């Protein structure tokens, strides 16, 4: 993975010193909250319901054990012993004191981490496929590009005060695990006919109040033009994006109002002007970033592990966990392990300091010192020998992290909601917990199969409810929490936005409504392997509406 050199280290430490000075000026009253706000936001510091919140970037979701231990240390020392992994490969600490934050940032810098640009109207933490460098379907590892973009966007003088926040995701496989088409810019690595690497570029995707699927603006931008092309998009957006209404300020609205063709013309004109300039990427520089992400020294193993087969034969729970939580690795004899932070009754994405320590140890022992955070709020051990799966599993069981539910209905994405978030209109964590409990029976979950359920506590959609196969949005109606259900959303390569099924449900009704939806699916599916999403696409919303609200008058 990427390691800081002298330059990076000096950059991050001087940034910490800069922020320390700014915090002192805030505390002394020299800086008003108004003037401090944009500064603290660009350093990941939010003012929440109860306290300041610090959001730390985990660039493209990759971290090593030392970094994970530092996150545990921060949770223990400055917070209430836990952290919350978000849907954007960040971790949030909900209770730090403002005056402690410079120290936290210094601790982070000591392990090559930071909180730069995890909030504010700037280019945010660049995300990537959490299976990068490991999955069997990959064309190329997207992380070198993500790292180059991370560097280029850090403290960019021109794009620090954009109309609105700006999110970039990069994937390197045809199967989209990073909801790439729901980002302001989505990049999909491709090879052209000549075999050269580059990216297809999507713009204007996003969730929130006005969900939109990203539109293909260029089907192949050569690697050397990566930064020029992205800079051209940002410049056009910075000058033309709306600033009169914060709900219309994202690039998706610019795309929508200007029209893709016209906007593409402006982007292409700017790109042509700058493409042969200073941002052209020299091959050697890309290769040297790429070298940081070279595959670990895998052993040459058979793709069948007799140890694994034997362990599966006499442990049904283990088998179940392997079937759900282990994915195909490109290296034979290895698997990708998903540790679901979704045990029944827990807040999705929350991890305690001691759980983080366990994960760090497992990464070190079994996964070449590497861990990943997925946008589905799980932790990944990317490179585990099949022979070691049982040992990893036993360890996870002992530490309460062996939920065998990756991709199942209880592997819920939920935002912090009203329990923590100042913007929330409804609670989301308790709803997730209730649904988790209702579907706790593993046989039943497995019978239901792949089903992505996502919950947001307000229209900002941090819980990605629009792309849930079943999406739940908490709204406030005259002081009462109400939950609106959408069906058929999808964040993968067949991107779709869920459709609202009808009137919302009260907090007491919502988990029952989900059950009705699931029962309807089970009754209507053609075969066990017709997934919820496939069935929904075949039969449409009508049967679900009828089950929920009764027959529609003709």
């Amino acid at each position: 993975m990427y390691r800081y050199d002298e330059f990076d280290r000096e950059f991050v430490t001087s940034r910490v010193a800069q922020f320390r000075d700014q915090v002192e000026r805030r505390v002394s009253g020299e800086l008003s909250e108004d003037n401090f706000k944009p500064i603290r936001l660009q350093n990941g510091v939010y003012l929440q319901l109860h306290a300041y919140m610090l959001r730390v970037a985990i660039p493209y979701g990759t971290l090593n054990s030392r970094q994970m231990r530092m996150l545990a240390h921060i949770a223990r020392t400055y917070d209430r012993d836990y952290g919350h992994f978000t849907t954007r490969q960040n971790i949030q600490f909900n209770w730090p004191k403002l005056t402690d934050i410079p120290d936290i940032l210094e601790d982070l810098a000591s392990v090559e981490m930071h909180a730069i640009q995890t909030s504010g109207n700037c280019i945010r933490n660049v995300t990537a496929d959490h299976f990068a460098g490991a999955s069997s379907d990959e064309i190329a590892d997207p992380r070198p590009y993500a790292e180059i973009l991370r560097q280029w966007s850090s403290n960019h003088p021109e794009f620090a005060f954009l109309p609105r926040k700006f999110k970039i995701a990069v994937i390197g496989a045809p199967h989209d695990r990073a909801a790439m088409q729901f980002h302001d810019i989505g990049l999909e690595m491709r090879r052209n006919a000549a075999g050269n690497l580059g990216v297809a570029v999507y713009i204007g995707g996003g969730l929130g109040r006005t969900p939109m699927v990203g539109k293909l603006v260029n089907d192949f931008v050569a690697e050397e033009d990566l930064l020029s092309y992205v800079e051209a998009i940002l410049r056009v957006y910075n000058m033309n994006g709306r600033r009169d209404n914060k709900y219309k300020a994202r690039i998706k609205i610019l795309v929508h109002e200007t029209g893709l063709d016209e906007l593409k013309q402006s982007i292409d004109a700017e790109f042509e002007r700058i493409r042969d300039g200073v941002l052209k990427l020299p091959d050697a520089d890309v290769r040297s970033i790429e070298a940081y992400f070279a595959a670990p020294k895998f052993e040459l193993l058979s793709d069948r592990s007799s140890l694994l087969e034997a362990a599966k034969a006499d442990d049904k729970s283990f088998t179940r966990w392997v079937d759900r939580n282990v994915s195909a690795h490109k290296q034979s004899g290895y698997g990708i392990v998903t540790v679901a932070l979704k045990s029944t009754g827990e807040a999705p994405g929350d991890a305690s300091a001691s759980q983080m320590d366990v994960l760090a140890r497992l990464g070190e022992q079994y996964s070449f010192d590497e861990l990943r955070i997925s946008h589905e709020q799980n932790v990944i051990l990317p490179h585990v020998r099949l022979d070691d799966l049982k040992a990893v599993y036993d360890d996870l069981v002992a530490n309460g992290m062996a939920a065998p539910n990756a991709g199942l209905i209880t592997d819920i994405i939920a935002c912090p909601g009203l329990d923590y978030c100042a913007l929330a209109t409804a609670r989301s964590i308790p709803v997730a917990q209730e649904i988790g409990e209702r579907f706790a029976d593993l046989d039943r979950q497995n019978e239901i199969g792949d089903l992505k359920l996502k919950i947001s506590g307000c229209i900002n959609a941090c819980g990605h409810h629009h792309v849930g196969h079943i999406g739940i949005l908490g709204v406030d109606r005259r002081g009462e929490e109400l939950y609106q259900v959408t069906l058929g959303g999808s964040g993968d390569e067949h991107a779709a936005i869920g459709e609202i099924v009808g009137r919302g449900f009260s907090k007491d009704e919502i988990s029952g409504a989900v059950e009705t939806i699931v029962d309807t699916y089970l009754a209507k599916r053609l075969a066990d392997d017709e997934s919820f999403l496939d069935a929904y696409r075949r039969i449409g919303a009508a049967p679900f509406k009828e089950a929920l609200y009764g027959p529609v008058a003709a």
Partner: protein
Amino acid sequence: MSYLYKDGAFQSDKWLTIDGDQPVPEGEDVIVSLTLFEEHQHALLTRNSGRLGVHLEAAEQLDAIVPHLDKFDVVSLDFPTFADGRAFSKARWLRDQHGYAGEVRAVGDVRIDQVSHMKRCGIDALLVTHQQTIDSLTDIKDPGLQLYYQPSAIDGETKAGGRAWARRA
């Protein structure tokens, strides 16, 4: 009251900003609004003496002034609020795309925490009102960083960090 900061020091501002429908005095160096410029283009471009500058509000585009850039000694760009970053891109365009060599000044809510960004986008003069910013600039307490991950619009930065896009002040 606002003060002009340029070339590392505060100095007196020789430029007269013409608000609204004031007369444009002969012989004075004046900065006019884009509207005034468009309405009286001919008269302004053929004045006998006195230099000419133009001021763009945040929502105003460069297009109208681009054909006449060589006539302007100052392009003044409005930063109406701390959060409005449009003028960063405009400054960048003036320098990079149009090779504009005159003064590009930042006017409005100019604050110390953005000064480094402004400079790197090609802004070389600041009209400052904010007292703490005046103090910091006087003490040369620019909180900007000295290391950058992207090339900028100004001379004097050297390559650094062993990759094409990184720079040091």
